[in-house]
């Protein structure tokens, strides 16, 4: 996986409600670069360049449920 040249940036937002149509993945399903981004952004107000297969609206289960926001 690699950076995507879209100019958009990712943010992770903690979420308690998982929509039935959301794509939900566990941390273990991500590749190493995606895992690194999730670790860095989880619980933090930071952003990172879009990477790999993390898309807007996706939900990742790490130490909590986090929704990917891409802007």
């Amino acid at each position: 996986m690699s950076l995507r040249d879209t100019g958009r940036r990712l943010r992770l937002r903690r979420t308690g409600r998982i929509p039935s149509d959301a794509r939900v993945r566990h941390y273990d399903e991500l590749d190493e670069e995606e895992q690194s981004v999730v670790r860095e952004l989880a619980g933090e107000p930071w952003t990172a360049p879009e990477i790999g297969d993390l898309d807007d609206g996706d939900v990742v289960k790490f130490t909590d449920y986090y929704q990917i926001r891409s802007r």
Partner: protein
Amino acid sequence: MSDSYVIVGDGIAGASAAETLREEAPDAEITVLTDEGESLYNRILIKEYAKGKLPEAPISIHQEDWYDEHDVDLRLNTIVDDIDVEGDAVHTHEGETFAYDSLLLAIGGTPQQLPVENADAEGIHHFWTFQDARRIKESVEDAERAVIVGAGLLGIDFAAICGAQDVEAKYLMRGDNWWRYALSAEGAEIMHEAMRERGVEPVFGSGVDHFEVDDDGHVEAAVDPNGERYECDFAGVAIGLDFNTELVRDTPLELDDGIVVDEFMRTNVDNVFAAGDITTFNDLILGERAKNGSWGSAKEQGTIAARNMIDYASEEFRWVSSYSITHFDFPFLSFGHPTLGDDYAEATTAEGEWRRVALKDGKVVGGVLIGDLSPQSAFKQLMREGRDVSGQTDRLMEPGFSVDDLAAPTEQ
């Protein structure tokens, strides 16, 4: 005539093989046989469903129409009861025969039952399939007290489920700490404390001598070898898997705690391959035969098996696995083979952060990270490179460790 591939098993290993075969052999005939009543689902997330944190829908990965769209013949509720490797055919319990040019066995395992009285009573659960998760969720929602057995990576899921569903639980362990083969008391105590915070009490030097049942045959208590009695409405047992080798026991396939395959996922029969939990594979990184039950490893094995079914020796399986626990407010990750090794280095790197690296002949073969997962890529890189870190293990324990912190490798 196109090649015909039969895959037994629709878990992630079998399904990733089917995907790869369809992509790389567009004209092939592909049949997937599974004894389950539903197509591929996310086995990592079923614990989240049982915790009541996730609805059913996102857990499904392949809807049944995926198989139609990809021209894969999926047969649900189909039990393979005989494999004729000389005749290149598998036979099912309903008398159907599926001939193949190449066969993939992704037949996994079955949870072991405790060899004690009343181990099969109502209310005693094992956790492997989505159906298990549904039964566990239903049962635990009505429970007030639980007993958990199995001090490993699967048992802790039961602890998390009880914690999430506000069920008071006793976690009965034979040793002095959780996952004693990979963690020292110091690392394990972080996990114990997280369990206690969720109402799950670890009980050491314990286990189960027998279960007691009520007049309806429902579990009502576990009695440990010390004679202590723990009342429960629900029991979760996760003591390991029996690999489903019965199916191939009367075939020429080599067995060794699973089906033996080479680094191309091929068995000792030229057109029979295996992938996933069932394999005992040639681990090129470890340098010996190994087993691995992680999702990522099974997925990769399925992909590699498919490529070698099309073109043998085209791609080898070379993989450092990892498995994380995300039930608590800190992460836990094991990688490689943390229970192997002839030496260890471990340290508490900050409050609530602990790491342990297992070494064999001076090389990293696995480890465990609690709290801070940031060195996982560096440790995996060392494993892939087979770097000798003799005399430098203290550096592996430094916060912020990177491979560049080590002396440059010398010519071996």
